[in-house]
Every structure is written in structure tokens, then in C-alpha cells.
């Protein structure tokens, strides 16, 4: 049985111009101990869908789903008190902005200890030792003396390590990392990523890694989900995704990788931007930017189709040669 199973997730926000579906029809399945990557441009709903998993979409945002199960527990009908017992303990999250994600008023050691105390993870007198151990585990030098530091006294990379220590404090079964390296220097990015992977291996926890870096995906993930404009447009095993993407958006993302553009004068880009609140087209949401756009793409929204675990939301999914299928000649 999957650790996390979500079917047809939707998140709606009330905006000045009416309700806005930031996430629509997303399925997520994560197995115990697995690494799943979620990719897509900014604004495609990656963060919002994972926040919904954590139960962190604040009112007046509204989350709906057909199925939402975590480790055998149905999250949909779960009272918030019960939900809070899972969140921070069995599922934890690391955010994109380490500098602003820690409370500026409290020392970092205190903030990690709070996570332990909230779930009675260790006996009271052992809290301090456990905090030192965690700081050490995430590679913070002189951990005992860093406990009293305030977030503004540490670098972004150090703060992100603190965030990770806080997230793994209660040995979660699922760790969600939302672009954990985007805000950091390039040199630090690799270290943080390696840290996450090694913690995942040691602890045997599942890792959902949100990123928009295809290079990272290739190196780390077993499975990939591609999101676009709030929808999941493709899911595949990493190897087959890279060798034979089925959705034109995935193909375009891969073409934009520098490694794949060797020998060309100019890096191909995807023209246009992710449609926002009021410029969503009818039919397929990707149609204004798609190379293979057809008549029906403009009118009929495509469904997720294909073999389980390798579905794509496209009327004319690409074949192994990168050509659209099912197009009337």
C-alpha cells in the first residue's frame, strides 16, 4: 500500500475576481522510502498542492479530493486536532525561503526543540541532547554552541540546515522539500541536496522533492510528476521520462536543458508564461505554448490517459521519436 495516496486533488482560493483553482485534478502517490520529484515552472501549483497535503492551506482557501490517505489514515474526514498529530511528526516539510521561514525571535535550538516537544518525541531531559544530535546530523559545525544562535546570525545555507533538522526531528515517514535550494548560492545548493538524499537513505523516509531543475530530477528521483497551470500533465519513471517524454510540455522542458542543447547556437525556450488567474485558455491549458496544437486542443480539455504510472494529459501524446500520435493526417 502506498504511503501517500491522493486522487483528484483541487485547491481553490477566493480572489477579488471570484474563485481561482490553483490546483486541479492532481493525483499523488508516494511509496514508503521513495523519492518523487515534482517539476514545473513557477506558478504551476507545486507548492500549493504540497501545502494541501500538509493541511497548511489557510482559510479561505479550500481543499477537495476524492481520496486523500496517508499511512492508512483518511485525511479528508480527519478532525484538525488529529491532523496536527501527524503533521510535523509523520509528515514534515522544508520550505523554499530559509531566511524567512524561521521565527526571528527565538534561537534556532529552541525552535527545533519545540518540534520535539510538540509531539513528545523524546523524554524532556533528553531534548537538548537530541537537538545537538540533529544539528550535528545536518552538518552544522559546533552544534552545541549554535543552539543559541538566532536565525539572523546564520547564513541561508545554515538556516536551511536548521529547517531540515527541524523537519526530521520526529523521524517523519514523508519529507516534503519545496524547492529547498532555490534561494541558496549555487555552491550550497548541491550540499543541501546531497544532505537531503543521504538523510532519506539513512532514515528510509519517503521524499517528495519539488524543483524546477531537471538536472536535479535526473540525478535523484525514481519517479517524476510534471505540473502545469495547476494540473498534473505527466507522470513517469525518471529514466523513461528523460528518454521518451509523452507530454509536449515535458519535452519542451527537457529541450531547454543546456546539456541537451549541445552544439546549438541558442538554448531553446518555451515561449510565453504559465497562465495565471484570468488568462487561462479553454481546452488544454498548454495550447497557447504548444508546438503541436490541434483543433480540439483549443476546445476540449484533455484527460490524464495512458498506462498506470505513465499517464499524460494530452490529446496527442508524443511517441518515442518525439512525434505526436493520433493526429489526423
Amino acid at each position, binding site marked *: 500500500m502506498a504511503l501517500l495516496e491522493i486522487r483528484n486533488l483541487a485547491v481553490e482560493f477566493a480572489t477579488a475576481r471570484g474563485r481561482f483553482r490553483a490546483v486541479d485534478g492532481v493525483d499523488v502517490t508516494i511509496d514508503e522510502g521513495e523519492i518523487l520529484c515534482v517539476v514545473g515552472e513557477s506558478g504551476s501549483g507545486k507548492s500549493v498542492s504540497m501545502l494541501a497535503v500538509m493541511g497548511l492551506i489557510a482559510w479561505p482557501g479550500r481543499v477537495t479530493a476524492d481520496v486523500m490517505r496517508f499511512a492508512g489514515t483518511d485525511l479528508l474526514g480527519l478532525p484538525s486536532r488529529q491532523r496536527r498529530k501527524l503533521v510535523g511528526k509523520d509528515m514534515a516539510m522544508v520550505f523554499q525561503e530559509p531566511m524567512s521561514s524561521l*521565527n526571528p*525571535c527565538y534561537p534556532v535550538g529552541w525552535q527545533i526543540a519545540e518540534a520535539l516537544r510538540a509531539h513528545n518525541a523524546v523524554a524532556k531531559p533528553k531534548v537538548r541532547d537530541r537537538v545537538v544530535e540533529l544539528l550535528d546530523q545536518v552538518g552544522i559545525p559546533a552544534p552545541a554552541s549554535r543552539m543559541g544562535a538566532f536565525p539572523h546570525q546564520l547564513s541561508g545555507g545554515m538556516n536551511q540546515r536548521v529547517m531540515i533538522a527541524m523537519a526530521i526531528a520526529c523521524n517523519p515517514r514523508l519529507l516534503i522539500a519545496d524547492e529547498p535550494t532555490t534561494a541558496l548560492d549555487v555552491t550550497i545548493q548541491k550540499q543541501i541536496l546531497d544532505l537531503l538524499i543521504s538523510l532519506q537513505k539513512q532514515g528510509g523516509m519517503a521524499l517528495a522533492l519539488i524543483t524546477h531543475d531537471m538536472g536535479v530530477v535526473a540525478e535523484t528521483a525514481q519517479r517524476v510528476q510534471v505540473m502545469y497551470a495547476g494540473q498534473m500533465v505527466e507522470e513517469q519513471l525518471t529514466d523513461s521520462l528523460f528518454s521518451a517524454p509523452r507530454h509536449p510540455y515535458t519535452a519542451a522542458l527537457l529541450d531547454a536543458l543546456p546539456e541537451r542543447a549541445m552544439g546549438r547556437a541558442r538554448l531553446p525556450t518555451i515561449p510565453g508564461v504559465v497562465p495565471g488567474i484570468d488568462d487561462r485558455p479553454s481546452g488544454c491549458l498548454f495550447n497557447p505554448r504548444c508546438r503541436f496544437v490541434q483543433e480540439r486542443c483549443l476546445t476540449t480539455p484533455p484527460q490524464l490517459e495512458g498506462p498506470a504510472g505513465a499517464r499524460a494529459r494530452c490529446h496527442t501524446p508524443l511517441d518515442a521519436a518525439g512525434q505526436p500520435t493520433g493526429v489526423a493526417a
Partner: protein
Amino acid sequence: MLRFLLRRVTLIIPTFVGVTFLSFMLIHLVPGDPIEVRVGEHGIAPERLAQLRHEFGLDQPLWQQFLTYEVQLAHGDLGVSVVTRDTVWNEFTTLFPATVELAVCAIIFAMVVGLPLGVIAAVRRGSAFDYGLMGLSVTGASMPIFWWGLMVILVFSVSLGWTPVSGRISDIYFVEPWSGFMLVDCWFADEAGACASAWGHLILPMIVLGTIPLATIARMTRSSMLEVLNEDYIRTARAKGLSVPRVVVVHALRNALIPVVTVIGLSVSSLLGGAILTETIFSWPGVGHWLVESIQRRDYPVLQGGTLLVAVLVILVNLGVDVTYSFLNPRIRR
């Protein structure tokens, strides 16, 4: 920290000169002098008047009077009341506890009521409670104190007869003025009746003086909380699985308090202004009441010395606010 304190303290000196100059000039612009006011309509012989004026140095040119006063101040002498012949310092220290008692109770009242109201309004933003409270707080903040004081007296003292209208305690009680704070003295006197009487006298002026700070604190807390509740670290706190009250109080309020404390501190100076009006309306025997009377009596030394002492107080309070601020906000601590 020490250098910062020193710099702030040295700033007091020019403020002193400015304050004494202004209060000196303003009171001398008012027609009549202490002697004339005291003799009233009966009048006395012109020779006697001249002699008394000479005695108090009132016959000298203004600039010379001012200089004499400044020199006297520089020796740490605030002078003697023209009316009571008691030293200004003595009178001030006797009356000051009454003002402090009123002001402290008013600000505590404002915080105890205003902070939770602001927090609840922020957490339930857009609700009827939120709109109602914000409407009320605009009204509260713009209420003229003298009108509000009179209305409160009219309703609670005159119509309902619940509380007395003036003074600090009923005449039938005598409590040893041990600390000068009536509530404390009554507590130690161990007389339930005296305590009740002291509270009864305090409650209306406390509410009247506390109304404006209450409204300001509620509004500030609300807007500050709204800002903080959107911060990333609040999301982190919720991601730990903490309860809502813990997120709101421990994580949000602690940060939201930083600007609110500044506002509370800065409102202390306007609180002293309000205390003067409140003390006058409720005949509260404090420094404000004393200053207003000194104007009527043209008691120059009292008015000037009293104003000066109040100014020093405002400066010290603002200094205290800055220090508190640096403790609340680790980012500016060194």
C-alpha cells in the same frame, strides 16, 4: 548599548533649556502675576504690592528673571511654590504617585483589553467582530477626553450612582501614605472597605484615560498581527503541528508586539497629556491637577518646575521604550 544610553542622556540637556524657555515664556504671556492673583479683587496698597513683587524678583526684567531661574536650576534647585511656600520638588514627589497610579492602571487596562481584542480581530479578519471592533476603535481614539469623562460621570456616578466622582478614596478612611500608591497602601492597611473605596474612585478615571490607548493598541495589534500571520515562519510553526493558540500567541504575537510596544511607549507622552485632563475632571490629586491649578494661581515656579519634571519623565520613558524594544527584537540587539 552603553554608548547609546549615554548619547540619549546627553540629549536631555538641550531639551531642558528648550522646555524651561517655552514654559517660562508662555506663563508670562498670561496677564497677571502670582501676587495680583492672590490679593484678588480687594487689592492692597501699591507700596505693599511693589514690595512683595520685589521680594519674589518679579520687578526685574524678564530676561534677567529667566537667567536667574536657569542658574538656580543648574544648581539643582527647582524653587519654592509662591502659594504654599513648599518646595516644588516636595510637592511633586507627594503628588506624583497618584499620577503614576492612574497612568499605570490606565495603560494596563488598555493593554489587558486592547491586546486580546486586536489579536482576535486579526485572527478573525473580515468577521462582524472585526468590523465592529475597528469601528469602535476609531470612535475611541477620536473621543475628546473631557467630553468622554463627563459622559462617564453622568452615567455611572450621577444616574446609576455606582461610583464616586472625585478624589482617590472616601474621607472616612485614613490609610498610612506609605508608598503613595493608594491601592498598595490600602492593601497593606488590610481594610477591605478602603480597598473597595480606592478601586471605586480609580475605575472611572482609569477607563477614561485608558480609552485612547486602548483603541490605539487594539488597532495596532490587529494590523501588526495581520502582517505577521502572513509570514513564512508562521507557516513553519503550523507545519510543526502546533496548536492554533500556540502559533498565534508564541509565534505571531511575540513578533507582532515589537511595533505595538513602541506605540504603547510613545503613547505615554500623550497619556500624560490625557492625565492632566482626566485628573482635572475627576479632581484626582495628581501632578496634572496640580499643574492646572498652578496656572490659575500663576504659581510660576510650580508650573515651570512641574513642566520640566514631566518633560524629563517623557524622555526617560522613551528611553525605556527603546531599551525594551531592543530586548524584544533580537535583530537589533548587539
